[in-house]
Protein backbone atom coordinates (compact mmCIF):
# COMPACT_ATOMS: atom_id res chain seq x y z
CA UNK A 1 0.00 0.00 0.00
CA UNK A 2 1.24 3.47 -0.91
CA UNK A 3 0.04 6.19 1.38
CA UNK A 4 0.52 9.93 0.87
CA UNK A 5 -0.43 12.01 3.89
CA UNK A 6 -0.97 15.78 3.68
CA UNK A 7 1.60 16.22 0.92
CA UNK A 8 2.56 19.75 -0.05
CA UNK A 9 5.07 20.34 -2.83
CA UNK A 10 6.13 23.51 -4.61
CA UNK A 11 8.43 23.87 -7.58
CA UNK A 12 9.75 27.25 -8.76
CA UNK A 13 7.32 29.06 -6.41
CA UNK A 14 4.36 27.20 -7.96
CA UNK A 15 2.34 24.99 -5.65
CA UNK A 16 2.09 21.60 -7.33
CA UNK A 17 0.38 19.74 -4.48
CA UNK A 18 -1.46 21.36 -1.62
CA UNK A 19 -2.28 19.11 1.33
CA UNK A 20 -2.86 16.01 -0.79
CA UNK A 21 -3.74 12.72 0.92
CA UNK A 22 -4.17 9.53 -1.05
CA UNK A 23 -3.96 5.79 -0.53
CA UNK A 24 -3.19 3.33 -3.31
CA UNK A 25 -3.86 -0.30 -2.41
CA UNK A 26 -1.27 -2.96 -3.28
CA UNK A 27 -1.89 -4.60 -6.65
CA UNK A 28 -4.21 -1.92 -7.99
CA UNK A 29 -3.69 -0.25 -11.34
CA UNK A 30 -4.08 3.48 -11.03
CA UNK A 31 -4.08 6.14 -13.72
CA UNK A 32 -3.03 9.71 -13.03
CA UNK A 33 -4.31 12.20 -15.55
CA UNK A 34 -4.34 15.95 -15.85
CA UNK A 35 -3.19 18.78 -18.10
CA UNK A 36 0.48 19.39 -18.93
CA UNK A 37 2.45 20.87 -16.07
CA UNK A 38 -0.11 19.93 -13.40
CA UNK A 39 2.38 17.71 -11.52
CA UNK A 40 1.83 14.19 -12.88
CA UNK A 41 5.54 13.46 -13.20
CA UNK A 42 6.23 15.10 -9.83
CA UNK A 43 3.67 12.75 -8.28
CA UNK A 44 5.63 9.75 -9.58
CA UNK A 45 8.96 11.28 -8.57
CA UNK A 46 7.71 11.77 -5.01
CA UNK A 47 6.71 8.10 -4.75
CA UNK A 48 10.00 6.98 -6.33
CA UNK A 49 12.00 9.13 -3.91
CA UNK A 50 13.57 11.27 -6.64
CA UNK A 51 11.87 14.31 -5.05
CA UNK A 52 10.85 14.96 -1.48
CA UNK A 53 7.61 16.57 -0.29
CA UNK A 54 7.94 20.00 1.35
CA UNK A 55 5.44 18.90 4.00
CA UNK A 56 3.66 15.64 4.76
CA UNK A 57 4.88 12.07 4.53
CA UNK A 58 4.89 9.13 2.16
CA UNK A 59 4.66 5.52 3.30
CA UNK A 60 5.21 2.42 1.20
CA UNK A 61 3.90 -0.80 2.79
CA UNK A 62 3.55 1.12 6.10
CA UNK A 63 7.23 2.10 6.03
CA UNK A 64 7.93 5.81 6.23
CA UNK A 65 9.94 6.63 3.09
CA UNK A 66 9.83 10.45 2.86
CA UNK A 67 8.91 13.10 5.38
CA UNK A 68 8.88 16.89 5.15
CA UNK A 69 11.90 17.51 2.91
CA UNK A 70 13.78 14.37 3.97
CA UNK A 71 14.25 11.13 2.07
CA UNK A 72 14.25 8.35 4.65
CA UNK A 73 14.42 5.44 2.20
CA UNK A 74 16.54 6.10 -0.93
CA UNK A 75 14.99 5.37 -4.36
CA UNK A 76 16.91 2.11 -4.95
CA UNK A 77 15.60 0.60 -1.70
CA UNK A 78 11.92 1.29 -2.41
CA UNK A 79 11.44 -1.61 -4.86
CA UNK A 80 9.95 0.72 -7.45
CA UNK A 81 10.42 0.64 -11.20
CA UNK A 82 10.18 3.87 -13.19
CA UNK A 83 9.62 4.05 -16.94
CA UNK A 84 10.51 7.62 -17.86
CA UNK A 85 8.78 9.59 -20.58
CA UNK A 86 11.98 9.86 -22.63
CA UNK A 87 13.13 6.25 -22.05
CA UNK A 88 16.30 7.52 -20.29
CA UNK A 89 18.46 4.66 -21.52
CA UNK A 90 22.18 5.04 -20.85
CA UNK A 91 23.71 5.85 -24.24
CA UNK A 92 27.13 4.33 -23.50
CA UNK A 93 25.75 0.86 -22.71
CA UNK A 94 24.15 -1.60 -25.10
CA UNK A 95 20.70 -3.06 -24.42
CA UNK A 96 21.97 -5.98 -22.37
CA UNK A 97 24.20 -3.76 -20.23
CA UNK A 98 21.29 -1.37 -19.67
CA UNK A 99 19.20 -4.24 -18.33
CA UNK A 100 22.07 -5.79 -16.36
CA UNK A 101 22.77 -2.61 -14.42
CA UNK A 102 19.89 -3.32 -12.04
CA UNK A 103 20.78 -7.01 -11.74
CA UNK A 104 24.35 -6.70 -10.53
CA UNK A 105 23.50 -7.67 -6.97
CA UNK A 106 22.36 -11.10 -8.16
CA UNK A 107 24.75 -14.03 -8.68
CA UNK A 108 25.90 -14.25 -12.31
CA UNK A 109 23.82 -17.33 -13.13
CA UNK A 110 20.65 -15.76 -11.70
CA UNK A 111 21.36 -12.50 -13.53
CA UNK A 112 21.76 -14.39 -16.82
CA UNK A 113 18.51 -16.25 -16.25
CA UNK A 114 16.68 -13.03 -15.36
CA UNK A 115 18.17 -11.30 -18.38
CA UNK A 116 17.12 -13.99 -20.85
CA UNK A 117 13.63 -14.17 -19.40
CA UNK A 118 13.07 -10.43 -19.51
CA UNK A 119 14.51 -10.15 -23.05
CA UNK A 120 12.12 -12.81 -24.26
CA UNK A 121 9.09 -11.45 -22.33
CA UNK A 122 9.56 -7.98 -23.76
CA UNK A 123 10.51 -9.14 -27.25
CA UNK A 124 13.90 -7.45 -27.16
CA UNK A 125 16.14 -10.51 -27.64
CA UNK A 126 17.06 -9.43 -31.18
CA UNK A 127 18.10 -5.99 -29.87
CA UNK A 128 20.42 -7.34 -27.19
CA UNK A 129 23.71 -6.07 -28.64
CA UNK A 130 22.39 -2.82 -30.10
CA UNK A 131 23.26 0.58 -28.65
CA UNK A 132 20.32 2.81 -27.60
CA UNK A 133 21.18 5.41 -30.24
CA UNK A 134 20.53 2.90 -33.02
CA UNK A 135 17.04 1.92 -31.78
CA UNK A 136 13.72 3.38 -32.92
CA UNK A 137 11.49 5.19 -30.41
CA UNK A 138 9.28 2.13 -29.91
CA UNK A 139 12.28 -0.16 -29.42
CA UNK A 140 13.79 2.24 -26.89
CA UNK A 141 10.57 2.25 -24.86
CA UNK A 142 10.46 -1.55 -24.99
CA UNK A 143 14.03 -1.72 -23.69
CA UNK A 144 13.19 0.85 -21.01
CA UNK A 145 10.30 -1.35 -19.88
CA UNK A 146 12.60 -4.40 -19.88
CA UNK A 147 15.22 -2.57 -17.81
CA UNK A 148 12.60 -1.42 -15.33
CA UNK A 149 11.04 -4.86 -14.93
CA UNK A 150 14.32 -6.77 -14.64
CA UNK A 151 14.79 -6.31 -10.85
CA UNK A 152 11.12 -7.30 -10.32
CA UNK A 153 9.80 -4.12 -8.67
CA UNK A 154 6.70 -4.22 -6.50
CA UNK A 155 5.53 -0.82 -7.71
CA UNK A 156 5.67 0.14 -11.37
CA UNK A 157 5.60 3.85 -12.19
CA UNK A 158 5.05 4.73 -15.83
CA UNK A 159 5.31 8.28 -17.08
CA UNK A 160 3.47 8.54 -20.39
CA UNK A 161 5.25 5.53 -21.90
CA UNK A 162 3.13 5.57 -25.08
CA UNK A 163 3.57 9.25 -25.95
CA UNK A 164 5.30 10.18 -29.23
CA UNK A 165 5.05 6.67 -30.69
CA UNK A 166 3.52 5.78 -34.05
CA UNK A 167 0.27 3.81 -33.95
CA UNK A 168 1.88 0.40 -34.58
CA UNK A 169 4.56 0.84 -31.92
CA UNK A 170 1.97 2.26 -29.54
CA UNK A 171 -0.37 -0.73 -29.96
CA UNK A 172 2.47 -3.25 -29.56
CA UNK A 173 3.85 -1.57 -26.44
CA UNK A 174 0.36 -1.15 -24.96
CA UNK A 175 -0.28 -4.89 -25.39
CA UNK A 176 3.10 -5.69 -23.84
CA UNK A 177 2.45 -3.48 -20.80
CA UNK A 178 -1.05 -4.89 -20.41
CA UNK A 179 0.15 -8.49 -20.50
CA UNK A 180 2.94 -7.77 -18.00
CA UNK A 181 0.64 -5.93 -15.63
CA UNK A 182 -2.14 -8.54 -15.78
CA UNK A 183 0.27 -11.41 -15.13
CA UNK A 184 1.84 -9.83 -12.05
CA UNK A 185 0.83 -8.55 -8.65
CA UNK A 186 2.57 -5.23 -9.15
CA UNK A 187 0.97 -1.95 -8.21
CA UNK A 188 0.83 0.18 -11.35
CA UNK A 189 0.72 3.96 -11.38
CA UNK A 190 0.29 5.06 -14.96
CA UNK A 191 0.56 8.71 -15.90
CA UNK A 192 -1.14 9.72 -19.12
CA UNK A 193 -3.42 12.29 -20.66
CA UNK A 194 -5.05 9.80 -23.02
CA UNK A 195 -8.33 8.52 -21.59
CA UNK A 196 -8.24 5.44 -23.88
CA UNK A 197 -5.06 4.34 -22.13
CA UNK A 198 -6.75 4.79 -18.76
CA UNK A 199 -9.50 2.32 -19.61
CA UNK A 200 -6.99 -0.04 -21.23
CA UNK A 201 -4.68 -0.45 -18.23
CA UNK A 202 -6.25 0.88 -15.08
CA UNK A 203 -9.10 0.24 -12.69
CA UNK A 204 -8.95 3.58 -10.88
CA UNK A 205 -8.43 7.03 -12.25
CA UNK A 206 -7.21 10.12 -10.41
CA UNK A 207 -6.97 13.56 -11.91
CA UNK A 208 -4.63 16.29 -10.71
CA UNK A 209 -6.47 19.60 -10.69
CA UNK A 210 -5.82 22.79 -8.75
CA UNK A 211 -2.95 21.22 -6.74
CA UNK A 212 -5.30 18.45 -5.55
CA UNK A 213 -5.59 14.81 -6.56
CA UNK A 214 -9.23 13.91 -7.20
CA UNK A 215 -10.64 10.39 -7.66
CA UNK A 216 -12.76 10.15 -10.80
CA UNK A 217 -14.20 6.64 -10.48
CA UNK A 218 -13.92 3.37 -8.54
Amino acid at each position, binding site marked *: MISLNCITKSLARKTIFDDVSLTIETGTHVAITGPSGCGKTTFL*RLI*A*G*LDTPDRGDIRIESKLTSQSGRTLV*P*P*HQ*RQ*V*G*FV*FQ*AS*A*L*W*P*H*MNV*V*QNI*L*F*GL*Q*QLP*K*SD*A*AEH*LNRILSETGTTHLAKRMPGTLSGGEQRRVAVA*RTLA*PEPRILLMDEPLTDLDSVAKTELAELIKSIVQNSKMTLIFVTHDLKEVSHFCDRNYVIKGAKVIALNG
Partner: protein
Amino acid sequence: MPVDAARILMPNRFRFWVQIHMPLMMRTCIAASLLMFVLALGELPASLLTIPPGTGTITIRIYNYMHYGATETVAGLCLVIPLLTIIYAIFLFGVAGSWRFFLPKVPGKKT
Protein backbone atom coordinates in the same frame (compact mmCIF):
# COMPACT_ATOMS: atom_id res chain seq x y z
CA MET B 1 16.89 11.72 -16.45
CA PRO B 2 19.38 8.88 -17.17
CA VAL B 3 20.91 9.65 -13.77
CA ASP B 4 17.48 9.42 -12.12
CA ALA B 5 16.96 6.04 -13.77
CA ALA B 6 20.27 4.92 -12.28
CA ARG B 7 19.33 6.22 -8.82
CA ILE B 8 16.33 3.88 -8.83
CA LEU B 9 18.22 0.81 -10.05
CA MET B 10 21.52 1.62 -8.28
CA PRO B 11 23.31 -1.55 -7.13
CA ASN B 12 25.82 0.49 -5.08
CA ARG B 13 27.38 3.95 -5.06
CA PHE B 14 30.67 2.89 -6.67
CA ARG B 15 28.94 1.28 -9.64
CA PHE B 16 26.57 4.24 -9.91
CA TRP B 17 29.57 6.53 -10.17
CA VAL B 18 31.81 4.52 -12.51
CA GLN B 19 29.13 2.96 -14.71
CA ILE B 20 26.74 5.88 -15.10
CA HIS B 21 28.04 9.23 -13.84
CA MET B 22 31.59 9.15 -15.20
CA PRO B 23 30.73 7.80 -18.68
CA LEU B 24 27.94 10.39 -19.03
CA MET B 25 30.36 13.17 -18.05
CA MET B 26 33.27 11.74 -20.04
CA ARG B 27 32.93 13.86 -23.20
CA THR B 28 32.66 17.07 -21.20
CA CYS B 29 35.59 16.08 -18.99
CA ILE B 30 37.76 15.24 -22.02
CA ALA B 31 36.94 18.53 -23.75
CA ALA B 32 37.58 20.53 -20.56
CA SER B 33 40.79 18.68 -19.82
CA LEU B 34 42.12 19.17 -23.35
CA LEU B 35 41.23 22.85 -23.31
CA MET B 36 42.95 23.37 -19.96
CA PHE B 37 46.00 21.41 -21.16
CA VAL B 38 46.37 23.65 -24.22
CA LEU B 39 45.91 26.81 -22.16
CA ALA B 40 48.36 25.63 -19.48
CA LEU B 41 50.94 24.57 -22.08
CA GLY B 42 51.01 28.04 -23.59
CA GLU B 43 50.86 29.92 -20.29
CA LEU B 44 53.84 32.23 -19.69
CA PRO B 45 53.11 34.88 -17.01
CA ALA B 46 51.74 32.45 -14.43
CA SER B 47 54.60 30.00 -15.11
CA LEU B 48 57.21 32.73 -14.59
CA LEU B 49 55.67 33.58 -11.23
CA THR B 50 55.23 30.06 -9.91
CA ILE B 51 58.02 27.77 -11.17
CA PRO B 52 60.77 26.82 -8.71
CA PRO B 53 64.39 27.85 -9.47
CA GLY B 54 66.31 25.58 -11.86
CA THR B 55 63.29 24.31 -13.78
CA GLY B 56 61.49 25.64 -16.81
CA THR B 57 58.39 25.01 -18.87
CA ILE B 58 58.40 24.74 -22.64
CA THR B 59 56.88 28.23 -22.91
CA ILE B 60 59.64 29.77 -20.78
CA ARG B 61 62.25 28.06 -22.95
CA ILE B 62 60.61 29.46 -26.08
CA TYR B 63 60.55 32.91 -24.48
CA ASN B 64 64.24 32.70 -23.60
CA TYR B 65 65.26 31.38 -27.01
CA MET B 66 63.30 34.21 -28.65
CA HIS B 67 65.31 36.64 -26.53
CA TYR B 68 68.57 35.21 -27.91
CA GLY B 69 67.21 35.08 -31.49
CA ALA B 70 67.38 31.29 -31.87
CA THR B 71 64.65 31.22 -34.51
CA GLU B 72 65.06 27.57 -35.59
CA THR B 73 64.94 26.29 -32.00
CA VAL B 74 61.87 28.44 -31.30
CA ALA B 75 60.13 27.07 -34.40
CA GLY B 76 61.02 23.51 -33.36
CA LEU B 77 59.75 23.97 -29.83
CA CYS B 78 56.54 25.58 -31.13
CA LEU B 79 55.94 22.45 -33.20
CA VAL B 80 56.33 20.37 -30.04
CA ILE B 81 53.30 22.09 -28.46
CA PRO B 82 50.67 20.78 -30.94
CA LEU B 83 52.45 17.42 -30.92
CA LEU B 84 52.12 17.20 -27.13
CA THR B 85 48.46 18.23 -27.41
CA ILE B 86 47.81 15.42 -29.91
CA ILE B 87 49.57 12.88 -27.66
CA TYR B 88 47.51 14.06 -24.68
CA ALA B 89 44.29 13.87 -26.73
CA ILE B 90 45.12 10.27 -27.75
CA PHE B 91 45.82 9.44 -24.10
CA LEU B 92 42.43 10.89 -23.06
CA PHE B 93 40.54 8.97 -25.73
CA GLY B 94 42.39 5.84 -24.60
CA VAL B 95 41.22 6.44 -21.03
CA ALA B 96 37.65 7.00 -22.30
CA GLY B 97 37.77 3.78 -24.31
CA SER B 98 39.16 1.73 -21.44
CA TRP B 99 36.21 2.86 -19.29
CA ARG B 100 34.24 -0.01 -20.90
CA PHE B 101 36.12 -2.25 -18.47
CA PHE B 102 33.89 -0.92 -15.66
CA LEU B 103 30.57 -1.46 -17.46
CA PRO B 104 28.32 -4.42 -16.57
CA LYS B 105 29.68 -7.69 -17.94
CA VAL B 106 27.41 -9.75 -20.14
CA PRO B 107 27.00 -13.17 -18.43
CA GLY B 108 28.87 -15.95 -20.20
CA LYS B 109 30.82 -13.53 -22.40
CA LYS B 110 34.60 -13.37 -21.93
CA THR B 111 35.94 -9.82 -21.94
